[in-house]
């Protein structure tokens, strides 16, 4: 009874990936690989900046290579975060559009704050 119901259900009703193949799966993996490198660089930089004060921090962010790498780190971090949050939502609240929307909005605000900070520092 249960088996036949599950078979019927999985063949007919389970949401299948109509539009995507392995894209999101691959994106999760490649963002992970990129973040190992980028957060390693960020951690090393943070270690160097600790205790150096505001001027050193500003000079660091104003350097074009650092500004670019910081922006890249944040873009990939936010992408990875959104995929992670969505995976959590889908596993326990598969039909909650509200939670997925909250995750997307949160990630967007985070990205705007970080990139805005980099932009303001870079322009100053």
């Amino acid at each position, binding site marked *: *009874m*249960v088996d036949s*119901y*599950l078979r019927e*259900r*999985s063949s007919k*009703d*389970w*949401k299948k990936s109509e539009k995507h193949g392995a894209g999101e799966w691959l994106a999760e*993996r490649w963002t*992970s*690989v990129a*973040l*190992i490198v980028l*957060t390693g660089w*960020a951690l090393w930089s943070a*270690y160097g900046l*600790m*205790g150096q004060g*505001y001027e050193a*921090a*500003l000079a660091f*962010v104003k350097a074009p290579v650092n500004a670019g790498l*910081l922006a890249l780190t*944040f873009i990939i*971090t*936010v992408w990875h*975060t959104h995929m*992670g*949050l969505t995976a*959590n939502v*889908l*596993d*326990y609240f*598969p*039909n909650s559009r509200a939670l997925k929307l909250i995750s997307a909005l949160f990630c967007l605000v*985070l990205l705007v*704050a*970080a990139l*805005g*900070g*980099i*932009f*303001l*520092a870079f*322009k*100053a």
Partner: protein
Amino acid sequence: MSQPPSKPTVYRPLSPHLQVWKFHITMFTSILHRATGLALVVGAVLVAAWLLAIGLTASGCCPQAYTSFLTFAASPFGLFIWFGLSLAGFIHLTGGIRHLIWDLGLGFQLKSANALSWWGLLIGIALTIVFWVVLFATGKVVL
């Protein structure tokens, strides 16, 4: 499960909820990988706040922004948060590497899967301890 749900909707197979598991290390580290990932969202918020504080101070609109951020970040509570984030970060890092190894199709034997989980957890904790010992030893962080 014997009755179909009355409401037609999108069905997905749900993850088993936490209480159904008997403890084993791959289950524990899998849950931990999610938990540390969620915790690291706080880290992303703090780093974004750091960047915003630099930008706002530099632009002249909020000259005290960076000082306010440092006041929090260097406070005992702030250090506690940073410590928790570094622990979550290192455990998520080793957990992520473990998942990438599995994604390559390696280490799926029960013994190797368990060993990878244990090593990932222990190395994550060890890296955190070493990181903070170095920070205190070099005077980068003082209480």
